[in-house]
């Protein structure tokens, strides 16, 4: 079985129409969010496993991670990573806010009619 087939099969819909308890849009977003919450937990546990293995092997010592203070350059890199990360995931908020300042904005659908007109 190919990886693509296994992935498709893993997410296959069971026989039986799916019930919705919330507005379909909300339930769709919640379902995606819960899957991401799951994957975040998986990542967090993987980091924890790594930390424990490093502790066991003496690479890290107890409390070293909690006591960690980044130097100035590292702190800046980490802060920038957070800023980038937030900007990426909140893209739609930025774009909706920019749209408020563009009351003359026109939809491509309408421009298509306009630029496609004969005269």
């Amino acid at each position: 079985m190919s990886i693509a087939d296994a992935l498709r099969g893993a997410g296959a819909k069971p026989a039986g129409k799916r019930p919705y308890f919330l507005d379909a849009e909300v339930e769709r977003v919640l379902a995606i969010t819960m899957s991401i919450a799951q994957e975040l937990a998986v990542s967090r546990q993987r980091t924890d496993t790594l930390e424990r293995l490093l502790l066991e092997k003496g690479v890290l010592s107890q409390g070293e991670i909690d006591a960690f203070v980044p130097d100035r350059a590292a702190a800046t890199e980490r802060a920038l990573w957070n800023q980038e990360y937030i900007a990426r995931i909140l893209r739609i908020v930025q774009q909706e806010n920019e749209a408020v300042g563009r009351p003359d904005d026109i939809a491509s659908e309408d421009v298509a009619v306009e630029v496609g007109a004969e005269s």
Partner: protein
Amino acid sequence: MSRNDPAADYDGPPDYRVIGRHALFPQTSHDEIERINFLAQMNRHLAANVVPGVKQAYEKRVVPAFEAAEGRPIANRHEAREALLADPAFQTWSAMRRMTMEQRQQAGRWTALRQSEQLAEKARELTEGDDRLKLDPALQQPRYVSAVDHHCMPGSYHTEYFPGDVTNGANYDHAGFVTTSGLLGKYSDGGGHAVARWVKRNLPDFQPRQILEIGGTVGHSSLPLAQAFPEAEMTIVDLGAPVLRYGLGRAKSLGVDNVRFVQASGEDLSIFPDASFDWIQTTMFLHELSTGSLRRIMAETRRLLKPGGIVLHVEQPQYAPEMPLFEQAMRDWDAYYNNEPFWSRMHEMDLDAEMIAAGFERDQLIHGGVTAVVDRDLFPDAADDDKEDYGRKAAWHVIGATV
């Protein structure tokens, strides 16, 4: 509260790594295990922390709103469920409970599918030429299995993705931990051990030679009976070839040899002569049937029992008038939203009357109760668990009969 010691206060499922493995158990990566751990914790969180909110919403919002609108109390569990459907607390809990099941199926199926060929090869090595596996490729799947996939398990127990496939057995076996949060123990067999213990305590002189479990899938609840009575021969019948193939490989790998796995419908067990068995068992099985098939299966159990034999059915409790309507409505959730369509009807049936109609005597009916028997050092014990997960808890009723 023990002085802020998180380990001493821990109440929840064990880490998945305590699960018992065998030759056919799928390999699980670190991240696959953590997906299962997360989902088991999700189910525990929903039961422990979200359900109380749903109950409060029912009492404080749903019931008063219904009574204000209708001028009378809620009359039955169907009205209670329909009223709950409009309440945000029930909606959110329901949406998340459904999603957790969908995520569990996706997680388990990925693990099983990505190694499906290796698992099939191991199953072939373990079962090839062994007459304790009898498959019937001509067997038709009944409507009560084919119409919707039980507990949202794509392909149910019977679909084979290629010849010799065991994927759906492997998925069912290794990730069932999610649904019961570990309450069924190391080999998901706490129900079987509970039944074996119940029989030894209540029928101390009973020495069965031939035991049959109908709908035994991979043998979770059957192997403990075979182990408890090593002189007996245990027959497991099921509709699904992948679970039976997986089941024999699993049993052999666990060193349980007094078993055989037979593909057949419980409604027609004419492959076995009358009076073939001393003990016929079903475990969490009746709710996946239909009214007609339940009656035909009960009639078959009567025909197949030897004089002095017993039949035992283990199920979640029936809806009795004294069970609050909220609890009944919550227990019905699986019927309507988790593809267990017979759950609701089955739990309101008069099972005593059905047993009598199948040919059993009223004064020889058996009633009891069991909770899962697990390794208490590693697993939570359902008998000590005061949470109610409405239909999922490892605490069951026993109904049966002697002849």
